[in-house]
């Protein structure tokens, strides 16, 4: 006859394997976006996994990603609170990301495509932090508006307006530099 404690433990392990483990990739992406560097991100995901493990037997199985992102946000808030201000993430010194090469049919097309991506990267770097954050969560990490809202602790409408304004700024930046299209530079 298994004890109540054993049953709880088995249930916790099952929930953890089913809902938490498949989301580790997404959690690490989001944590990297929120902390700005891999070392902190990895620590943050560890905190999140421990918290999720402790709460797993009470999780109802609905929207595991939203549940995990909320746990991650709370863990992040605790970490930030426990730190000295000068150690907080400086948005200007964030790690650079590796650009992927894009196969393109012609050399000229390739150059234009690379220029387009470079100008987008430049425009992105100039965005204020709160805009960059939503762009990272939605466009880099592939979260929905709802999920990004859970990760940031703001309403989905706020995610949407920040994101749309961010992309409008990028668009204007491209226009100002005559790079309005990939593979097509306007004169």
């Amino acid at each position, binding site marked *: 006859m298994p004890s109540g404690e054993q049953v709880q433990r088995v249930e916790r392990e099952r929930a953890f394997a089913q809902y938490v483990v498949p989301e*580790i990739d997404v959690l690490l992406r989001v944590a990297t976006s929120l902390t700005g560097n891999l070392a902190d991100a990895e620590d943050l995901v560890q905190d999140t*996994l*421990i918290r999720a493990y402790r709460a797993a037997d009470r999780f109802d199985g609905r929207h595991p990603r939203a549940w995990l992102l909320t746990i991650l946000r709370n863990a992040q808030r605790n970490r930030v609170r426990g730190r000295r201000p000068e150690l907080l993430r400086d948005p200007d010194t964030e790690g650079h990301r590796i650009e992927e090469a894009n196969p393109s049919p012609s050399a000229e097309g390739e150059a234009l495509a690379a220029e387009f991506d470079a100008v987008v990267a430049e425009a992105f770097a100039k965005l204020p932090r709160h805009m960059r954050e939503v762009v990272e969560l939605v*466009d880099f990490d592939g979260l929905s508006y709802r999920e990004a809202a859970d990760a940031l602790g703001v309403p989905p409408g706020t995610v*949407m307006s920040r994101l749309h304004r961010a*992309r409008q700024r990028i*668009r204007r930046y491209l226009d100002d530099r005559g790079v309005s*299209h990939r593979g097509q530079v306007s004169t």
Partner: protein
Amino acid sequence: MIRFRRRRTMLTCREVGRVLQAHLDGEIEHQKAQAVATHLNGCAGCGLEADVYSEIKAALRRQAGELAPDAVERLRRFGEHLSAHGDDPLSAP
């Protein structure tokens, strides 16, 4: 009534402009998304606008770095360890 419904499915450029980014993000409901898609097919101006934002979105997606595979692996092992041994700090990996 029928007329009203017809009118509602024909979106103006202004209406499309307001929901264009949400549409490209797959964040609007099916029926509205179809109405937007129909408009984009028939309207050169909005179609071009949609292309620009799709390209920006794709370029941003390419900015995202690859996830460090060793970090993912460490976290998976950490998760397995949690599952197998609980979160007793004395048994930390």
